[in-house]
């Protein structure tokens, strides 16, 4: 038990410590060494933790040092003051008000209740936190490695105008990672809250990294929305302590529904803000102004995953209640709106962002339903989404640097221009929506869980997922289609970038192959321990999924016959072809260029309009949720 807790503490403190150190490192080589070493250490640490022979249920860390709590209080006060300064400087009264409300509440709470605020276990490890830690360690570590090469190119080639503040960047990256470890291992709600606020602050700073007016604006928006969530979190702690005299997460989950419902609703609200559900989605979309590793970090391993982690944790407390139904509705509406909005845009990162919002909606939907089956499905979604989405972001980052564009239309013929990256992107996309990859298995599980619990909610899934299909396949098609005679762009990747990209591509496949293991080793024991029963896919279905996987893996093999026994001609263009089929002579004797352009449904759907509908709809749902929690 002692070794375990030491390991957990190390996982939290080593990245934070390394982050503080990297904040002072200006030398590129030294940074490389430190980042590499810490990433490796964290990677090994999480694996060691996950590989422990018996699944750990609840570990104890016997520290109740008064000074530790005091130190944490000081950190909180420091962060609060910083946020207030930011709010005043940028003239955002809302930020100041939210921070004052939340900080004042917590300060009053700690000063009046101080000595009684003791948790029997400050930290705990169970299978859910293990799986989150694995994602954070492996995927997050990959992002840090990738960031080394990416940020050098970012500052030295692509964006010379942006001030080079890489020490700050890497410091924040690692502090973020450490805070995320803290978040998933915390049992003491005060600790959880502290780490929660650290992630809010880190994301604010990272989004505003470039310091352009747009970046600042978007960073402030992220801050406001997450502070609103933070206020709800603080209220939840105070309320729960007032009524149940405890500040432990485990107690909260296992207490009676009448006692836990209000704090659970508040925490779900906090989770909804952090996981960028409608009406709060705009902060995550705005976060794309930051360099790509930040997007990848926010979208896959940290931040938004912290939000859904909390919602899924609260699932047993809200299941079967009106609050739960409202949470599910927010998720469902977000899934449909997010998927449709992704159709309308041709900007790669924006498509990815909407797809993240949509998939998180699905997870929140699971949390709101809150049955064992639904939670099982939601956890699967978290795992598979993290891997595939991270891979996609990192690929788009590379493509952006090589093509100087993140427009999907500009990626035409990428399979010839940048074959390796294009194949990895295709793998990532297949991982996001195609059978038999992970996300599809999870969506299938979600559908079953929803049909069993409340069939009417399935309407969100069936409409949302068909929209998902459309925007992914048209993107895949764009990568494959080749019109012009192509020039091959040099495809050199930095070492860290290669490790991250190849590693994540392999992980997309491995996560599917080892899906039964992930499910039976981590997810099922957790669901079993909370609900007393668990869900799984039948043996026969697993076999069928394996056969489908073999089909997909055989496909590249068919390229052995590439170009054999076929006669290659120009495409039919309805006129006399000129210049190797990139143009034709039209009826008026003029040469017409061939131009292939995807559909974006701009006349049918409108991104802003969709957003507005979603914001209004989800705000009403949240209002009903608040009413239901209080009544």
């Amino acid at each position: 038990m002692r070794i375990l807790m030491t390991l957990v503490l190390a996982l939290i403190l080593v990245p934070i410590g390394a982050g503080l150190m990297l904040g002072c490192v200006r030398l590129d080589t030294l940074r490389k060494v430190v980042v590499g070493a810490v990433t490796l250490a964290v990677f090994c640490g999480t694996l060691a933790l996950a590989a422990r022979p018996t699944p750990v249920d609840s570990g104890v860390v016997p520290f109740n040092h008064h000074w530790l709590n005091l130190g944490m209080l000081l950190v909180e006060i420091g962060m609060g003051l910083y946020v207030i300064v930011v709010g005043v400087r940028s003239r955002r009264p809302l930020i100041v008000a939210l921070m004052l409300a939340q900080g004042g509440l917590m300060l009053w709470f700690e000063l009046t209740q101080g000595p009684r605020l003791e948790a029997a276990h400050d930290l705990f490890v169970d299978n859910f936190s293990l799986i989150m830690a694995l994602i954070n360690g492996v995927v997050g570590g990959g992002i840090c490695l990738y960031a080394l090469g990416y940020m050098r190119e970012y500052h030295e080639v692509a964006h010379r105008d942006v001030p080079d503040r890489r020490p700050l960047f890497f410091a924040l990256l690692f502090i973020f990672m450490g805070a995320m470890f803290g978040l998933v291992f915390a049992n003491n709600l005060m600790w959880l809250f502290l780490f929660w606020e650290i992630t809010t602050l880190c994301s604010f700073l990272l989004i505003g990294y470039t310091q352009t007016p747009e970046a600042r604006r978007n960073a402030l928006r992220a801050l406001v929305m997450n502070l609103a969530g933070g206020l709800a979190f603080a209220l939840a702690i105070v309320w729960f302590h007032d009524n149940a005299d405890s500040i432990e997460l485990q107690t909260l989950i296992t207490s009676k529904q009448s006692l836990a419902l209000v704090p659970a609703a508040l925490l779900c609200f906090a989770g909804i803000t952090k996981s960028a559900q409608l009406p709060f989605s705009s902060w995550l979309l705005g976060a794309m102004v930051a360099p790509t590793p930040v997007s990848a970090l926010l979208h896959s391993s940290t931040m938004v995953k912290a939000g859904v982690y909390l919602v899924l944790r609260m699932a047993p407390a809200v299941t079967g209640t009106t609050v739960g139904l409202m949470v599910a509705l927010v998720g469902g509406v977000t899934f449909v709106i997010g998927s449709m909005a992704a159709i309308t845009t041709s900007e790669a990162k924006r498509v990815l962002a909407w797809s993240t919002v949509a998939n998180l909606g699905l997870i929140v939907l699971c949390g709101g339903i809150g049955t064992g089956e639904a939670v099982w499905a939601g956890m699967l979604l978290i795992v598979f989404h993290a891997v595939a989405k991270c891979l996609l972001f990192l690929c788009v980052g590379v493509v952006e640097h090589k093509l100087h564009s993140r427009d999907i239309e500009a990626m035409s013929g990428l399979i010839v221009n940048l074959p390796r990256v294009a194949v990895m992107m295709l793998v990532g996309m297949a991982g996001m929506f195609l059978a038999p990859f992970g996300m599809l298995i999870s969506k299938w599980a979600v559908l079953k869980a929803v049909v069993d619990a409340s069939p009417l909610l399935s309407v969100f899934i069936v409409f949302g997922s068909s929209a998902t299909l459309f925007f992914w396949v048209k993107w895949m098609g764009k990568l494959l289609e080749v019109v012009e005679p192509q020039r091959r762009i040099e495809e050199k990747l930095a070492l860290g970038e290669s490790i991250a990209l190849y590693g994540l591509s392999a992980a997309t496949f491995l996560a599917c192959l080892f899906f039964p293991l992930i499910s039976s080793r981590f997810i099922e024991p957790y669901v079993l321990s909370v609900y007393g029963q668990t869900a799984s896919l039948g043996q026969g279905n697993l076999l069928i999924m394996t056969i489908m996987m073999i089909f997909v893996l055989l496909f590249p093999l068919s390229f052995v016959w590439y170009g054999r026994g076929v006669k290659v001609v120009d495409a039919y263009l309805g006129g006399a072809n000129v210049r190797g089929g990139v143009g034709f002579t039209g009826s008026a004797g003029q040469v017409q260029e061939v131009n292939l352009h995807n559909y974006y449904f701009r006349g049918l759907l409108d991104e802003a309009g969709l957003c507005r509908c979603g914001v209004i709809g989800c705000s009403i749902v949240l209002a009903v949720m608040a009413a239901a929690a209080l009544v």
Partner: protein
Amino acid sequence: MSSWIRLLIYLIAAPVVGGLLAGWDRRISARMQSRRGPPIFQPFYDVRKLWQKQSIVVRRSQNFYILFFLLLVIFTGALFFAGSDLLLVIFALTLAAIFFVLGAYKASSPYSFIGAERELILMMAYEPMILLTAIGMYMVTKSFYVHDIASHATLLVLALPGVFLGFLYTLEIKFRKSPFDLSSSHHAHQELVRGITTEFSGRALALVEIAHWYENVFLLGWVYLFFASSPLLGVAVSLLVFVLVILTDNVFARLKWQTALRSAWVVAAVLGFGNILVLSLLR
């Protein structure tokens, strides 16, 4: 009958039945247009002839996608007739269709490109209704497995009239017939040329044809599922539905893709979801 025997019968008989259905289709269509029409076996002759033709491509890898389209369509039907999970069958069908679409994208001609894009729109149009059909069947029979659904004691259509009608609507799309022949038309003399299959010729086109035979048999098998407790009725209705599809093909002009998408979603929301709403209220 064990599922393995059913599977074997499907693998061998489906192309024969599918080909004959295609032959009847052409014959009945011809009669509706006061023509004589080709012999019943014409589709088989066509495929034989296509098989002997030279392979002409625009992009060297385009035909591989078609091969996997065929394999996965066969796999989909195999899952269905072996009595497997209906949702899994839908996912396999989607995967197959995506290979077809990607093949057309790969061919990189404007006509196949627009066909691929429209095929995607059609997939988006029918997917909700097909999933709702599976969900509706689950709500009645408490199982997603085809063999459980098929051995259910009552006529499913009685509990799922809305879902059945909605399913018929999407069937029109799946058969790629007018008014939904947006992505590829059987008649090449129009603005799409041949849409999604414009750049496929010879063996690849033959494979597409065979895939459609398998697919059609699978789809009619699904229609049968609504009437499974009374097998004779089931077969009769399936054939009737097939004739109905031919009739609409000859009666209607093509819709715009916007109308196709909207109407399919409205049908899914009203008939499909409405039916499920009623079912869950009655529970």
